[in-house]
């Protein structure tokens, strides 16, 4: 353990110290807090209904039939039977809340239990339960409820129990799919290898992880249950004398033209109740995503281009010195990239980077994860998300300054002057379109479809694809990773760019394929005379391809030099450290396995 790593722990965990739970985070959101308060107030009004109303909900007084709101003792007026609308609304709240609880409760319990089993246990259980729940989905629930009404006596509680079962498939599907996903996570494998029982794995690892989406779905199920109950009451299923939003609506609907307000009251309260539930669910989901964000951000630090808009590069200062030499293909001076944190502070990921690529030169941009090398590459390509704040004194490609260019102009450059080869070949092809159609699309600006196709077929052959016609018509999932990377290279060089930016182009590939791809890149570079900026952490790749190397650490360039110089005489301490960590080809483990001792140990057992 080195001290730097311990420092890292302290550094990373500092802002996390007050690690607020999801609930606390939820309450911090105004929408979450308001909807929770509204929900609690409504529920309390229902629970303590008798304290808030002057009359019993079923008490009729013929003197106040259809009394207007504000009648003494009848805040919201009285209905067509002379019953207190306010009192009925309070009781209706209880009916709705109980319906929501029963419906959502049954659905969640049944759906979660069987979802866990189906997702975790095995294919046979999965097949049987999935089939059963599909059956449940096709079954006309209303028929069952009506048919069973002699048994249930029309009590809404029993009805909601039955509907709970029919709502269960959605929870079941949700949980099952989540569990299937979680089941293949390595930590579940690890738990199994650790000798944990299935029950423990399910409750501790699986359920614990999937609980968030389940809780969110509960809010939707509860709204659905409330809606179903009120719908049934509107139709007159079950006891018509139990006050509920549905029966109130039904009563009011008859008189809608004479006393429209009678329809408004129950609708408004029910809408308040359900919207509070839904917004609470939404706020909880947001709180949950917030909580997960750090991990995701790390995993996808480079891939967070979640927008189609292009970030404009801003000039740092007016009248910055134009240092781009005529000879340089790419000139970067004092580039920084920052992201605004939730607390408003700008977190810098690239800090004052300057580098050059000459025409026909291959420059390696090297660094460990988090060094800012990928962010640097993307800011040159103009592919950073809109949240990114990009500034530079100079950012010029082939004499054309990118600073202050709008997204349309940048897009034009991407299609012609500058190209990109990504790291992961598979995920960088659109799975829904054939290889040919995606490659052709990039060329359509400058030529006809026919010409574009011919060009692409030629290119596919050039990048070493044996049957270009077939690959052209294939979908991405039908080809191998190595082929896919060749396709992406073909796509990148199709427009004969002057500058190629390759982001770890071989990291995801096997060594044998990697060697072929490296050869291909070198050949193409030679043919087209492109300048290449190669982002990598693999010194073998650097040694194979690069003319010059730029070493980055924590967003800054620590050293730049010719490739041999970097390998043989690294100047900067960090570069030295990196070079030293390369696993030497000549050191082979020689200490013998201590199996002699072990054998003795085994024998004494």
């Amino acid at each position: 353990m080195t001290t730097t790593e311990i420092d890292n722990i302290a550094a990373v965990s500092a802002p996390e110290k007050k690690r607020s739970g999801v609930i606390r985070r939820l309450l911090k959101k105004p929408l979450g807090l308001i909807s929770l308060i509204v929900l609690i107030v409504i529920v309390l009004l229902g629970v303590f209904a008798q304290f808030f109303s002057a009359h019993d909900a079923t008490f009729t007084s013929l003197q106040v039939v259809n009394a207007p709101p504000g009648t003494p003792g009848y805040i919201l007026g009285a209905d067509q039977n002379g019953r207190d609308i306010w009192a009925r609304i309070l009781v209706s709240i209880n009916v709705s809340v109980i319906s929501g609880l029963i419906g959502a409760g049954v659905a969640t319990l049944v759906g979660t239990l069987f979802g866990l089993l189906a997702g975790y246990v095995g294919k046979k259980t999965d097949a049987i339960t999935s089939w059963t729940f599909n059956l449940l989905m096709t079954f006309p629930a209303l028929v069952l409820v009506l048919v069973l009404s002699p048994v249930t006596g029309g009590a809404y509680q029993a009805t909601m129990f039955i509907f709970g079962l029919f709502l269960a498939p959605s929870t079941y599907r949700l949980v099952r799919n989540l569990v299937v996903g979680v089941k293949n996570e390595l930590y579940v494998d690890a738990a199994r290898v650790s000798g944990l029982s299935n029950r423990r794995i399910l409750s501790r690892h699986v359920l614990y992880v999937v609980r968030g989406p389940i809780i969110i779905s509960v809010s939707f199920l509860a709204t659905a249950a409330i809606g179903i109950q009120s719908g049934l009451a509107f139709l007159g299923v079950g006891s018509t004398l139990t006050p509920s939003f549905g029966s109130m609506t039904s009563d009011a609907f008859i008189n809608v033209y004479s006393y429209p307000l009678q329809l408004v009251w129950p609708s408004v309260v029910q809408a308040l109740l359900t919207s509070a539930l839904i917004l609470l669910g939404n706020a909880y989901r947001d709180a949950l995503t917030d909580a997960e964000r750090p991990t995701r951000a790390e995993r996808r630090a480079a891939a967070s281009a979640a927008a189609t808009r292009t970030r404009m590069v801003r000039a740092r200062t007016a009248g910055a010195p134009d240092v781009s030499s005529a000879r340089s293909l790419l000139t970067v001076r004092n580039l920084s990239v920052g992201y605004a944190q939730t607390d408003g502070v700008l977190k810098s990921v690239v800090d004052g980077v300057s580098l050059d690529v000459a025409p026909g030169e291959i420059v390696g941009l090297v660094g460990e994860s988090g060094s800012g090398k990928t962010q640097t590459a993307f800011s040159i390509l103009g592919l950073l998300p809109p949240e990114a704040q990009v500034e530079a004194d100079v950012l010029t490609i082939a004499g054309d300054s990118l600073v202050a260019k709008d997204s349309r102009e940048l897009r034009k450059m991407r299609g012609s002057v500058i190209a990109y080869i990504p790291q992961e070949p598979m995920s960088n092809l659109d799975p829904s379109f054939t290889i040919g159609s995606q490659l052709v699309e990039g060329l359509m600006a400058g030529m006809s479809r026919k010409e574009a196709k011919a060009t692409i077929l030629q290119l596919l052959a050039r990048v070493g694809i044996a049957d270009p016609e077939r690959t052209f018509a294939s979908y991405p999932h039908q080809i191998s990773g190595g082929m896919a990377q060749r396709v992406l290279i073909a796509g990148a060089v199709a427009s004969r760019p002057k500058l190629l930016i390759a982001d770890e182009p071989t990291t995801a590939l096997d060594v044998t394929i990697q060697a072929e791809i490296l050869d291909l890149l070198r050949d193409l570079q030679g043919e087209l005379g492109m300048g290449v900026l190669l982002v990598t952490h693999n010194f073998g790749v650097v040694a194979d391809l690069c003319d010059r190397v730029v070493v980055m650490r924590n967003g800054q360039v620590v050293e730049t030099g010719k490739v041999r110089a970097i390998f043989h005489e690294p100047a900067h301490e960090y570069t030295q450290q990196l070079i030293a960590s390369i696993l030497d080809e000549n050191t082979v483990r020689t200490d013998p396995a201590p199996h002699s001792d072990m054998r003795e140990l085994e024998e004494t057992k």
Partner: protein
Amino acid sequence: MTALLTIDDLRLRYPGRGFRSASPEVLRGISLEIAPGETLGLVGESGSGKTTLGRAVLGLANPTGGSITFQGEDITRLSQKQRRPLAKRLQVIFQDPYTSLNPVLQISEILSEPIVAQGVSAADSRKTVSRLLDQVGLPSNAAQRYPREFSGGQRQRVAIARALALEPRLIVCDEPVSALDLSTQARVLDLLVDIQRNTGVSYLFITHDLSVVRHISHRVAVMYKGELVETGPVAEVTTTPQHEYTRSLLLSAPTADPDLQRERRALRRRLREAAA
């Protein structure tokens, strides 16, 4: 030599989607042995079956033929329940330290879980947790933190600590350093070697990186398309490979020296042109 783990003619075919549709065999008769205290490096390209072999040993994949014997006990096809006692002797470190740790559990929970599962009291397991953290070079206050608060290398240390919790005899290491940065990679490998020296644990070390294999293995087994093409001491296999695939593997790996790499490239190109 008494083998700790013996794999004999192991075959595996994943179930097809339909009733009779058979998928190609992933393991096609693998036989190998691991001695106590020994590291066997298992090399091969993606799809060669090396990860499947590791999973079969761990009981996470079901072999369709052959046998796996661990400490004299046939563990080829054990039920999950039968396998539970095995956890004390057979453990795993996975490749991706981001997904091998449950994001919602604290480090202390992750580490104590296998111990508690074996019936150890909570108080004792706490002591063990702090000992384990120390062993892998993490501060003891790490116990109360969550995986996301750590870097990749630190997480992999947590995963190693979890594997060590029950003092196993064999740890299957499935690409444990390939997701790590260069400097971290070297340190984690050193840690693994240290642990082996101190505890005498054996490693089945699965990797695609020859330089990693050289660093940690006593012996190397090379897999290609579900078969074992070459096995031998690490020095022999990496310097005088017998099988053609091993040779191309060695030549393909770029070396971190521009001049050496140029020679290797030229050699490879000649070989390829000769083959063509």
